[in-house]
């Protein structure tokens, strides 16, 4: 099938399958799945700027569905999501501007590829270390099965120290069980996530979801749902700004999204059967798949 906006020939079935897989990941982990979608589009020979913008558009649709389902399960902290959306939008614009600068310099594909490799790899290694340490230290307790969705983190002491930083204004997040936290810490997490959203595509849930758990101390299930809610707002802005810059092929996004709808439903239901550290441990291989695909296209220059 010919997609005139990006001037590319792509098998729509490939897009639907990619969308389906990303939908499952999104519903289950609360991430946009751009660490798979970006490289998957790149593998088809689509330039990074189109991969980033188109992926953002597809994520808007998918996140609307997943966030709605998470809201019905009580996994969304609306107050936190709205605060984070403000910071994310600012960061996303910075990321989109960086992409434009690289486009003008003519090295967008190389730079974004290497940044993607470093970021995805670092996240995987950190989450592997943390979730394994947490599961080992709470083995006895979680096996009692009294708390199927129990949430602990080996990074907990650092999180508590971060929560004690008192830089006015302080906000309380009763839904997430946080009595007080500095607004600036939430905004910093949001701006960093937003920058990577604009720069590497997607909702940057691969950065924001772990940041919400480890830095802000949000329970994993709430971090997943809130992240998705926040992605709806920030990815909409990202799509808009990238579309104006000529980086969005909405036809590709629409086709990918048809698969994502079904996948997202499966993912959301699956979160109910796993504890927080197990969800985080299962997350570990995903960014590594993105690393492998980016490395493959970067080193071989091969396009499907």
């Amino acid at each position, binding site marked *: *099938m010919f*997609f*005139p*906006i990006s001037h590319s020939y792509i098998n*729509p079935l490939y897009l*639907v399958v990619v969308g389906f897989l990303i939908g499952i990941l999104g519903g289950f982990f609360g991430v946009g799945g751009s660490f798979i979608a970006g490289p998957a589009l790149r593998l088809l020979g689509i330039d990074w700027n189109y991969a980033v913008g188109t992926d953002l*558009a*597809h994520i*808007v*649709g*998918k996140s*609307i*569905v997943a966030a*709605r389902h998470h809201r019905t399960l009580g996994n969304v902290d609306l107050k936190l999501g709205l605060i984070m959306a403000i910071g994310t939008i600012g960061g996303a614009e910075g990321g989109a501007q960086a992409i434009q600068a690289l486009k003008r310099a003519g090295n967008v594909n190389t730079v974004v590829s290497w940044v993607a490799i470093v970021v995805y790899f670092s996240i995987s290694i950190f989450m592997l270390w943390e979730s394994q340490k947490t599961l080992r230290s709470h083995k006895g307790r979680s096996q009692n099965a009294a708390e199927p969705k129990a949430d602990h983190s080996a990074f907990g002491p650092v999180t508590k120290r971060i929560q004690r930083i008192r830089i006015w204004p302080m906000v309380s997040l009763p839904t997430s069980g946080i009595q007080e936290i500095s607004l600036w810490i939430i905004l910093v997490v949001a701006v960093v996530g937003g920058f990577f959203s604009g720069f590497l595509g997607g909702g940057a849930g691969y950065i924001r979801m772990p940041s919400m758990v480890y830095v802000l101390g949000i329970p994993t299930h709430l971090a997943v749902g809130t992240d998705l809610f926040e992605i709806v707002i920030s990815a*909409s802005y990202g*799509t*808009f*700004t990238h*579309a*104006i810059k*000529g980086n*969005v092929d*909405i*036809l590709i*996004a*629409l*086709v990918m*999204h*048809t698969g994502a*709808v*079904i996948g997202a*439903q499966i993912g959301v239901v699956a979160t109910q059967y796993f504890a927080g550290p197990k969800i985080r441990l299962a997350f570990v291989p995903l960014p590594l798949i993105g690393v492998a695909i980016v490395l493959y296209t970067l080193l071989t220059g091969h396009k499907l």
Partner: protein
Amino acid sequence: MKKSDAKSLRAFAIELAIYAVLVTAYFFLVLHLLGDWLYRLETQHRVLYAVVALLLIAGQAVVLDAITTLLFRILRRRWR
């Protein structure tokens, strides 16, 4: 596998099959009709294209979610 799980799985498989037919029809009808118009919009009116792109993806999300939810509900009721 529990009896209820097997029923859910069967309902889901049927939902997937119906959904696949609907999506295929959607590709050939809607995307072919919209393709040229969106391409012209993207080259000539970027801001309008950005707005339309957002509306399309949000609209598709709501409609497809409603369809899949409805299908799943009907099929589960049928096999209960």
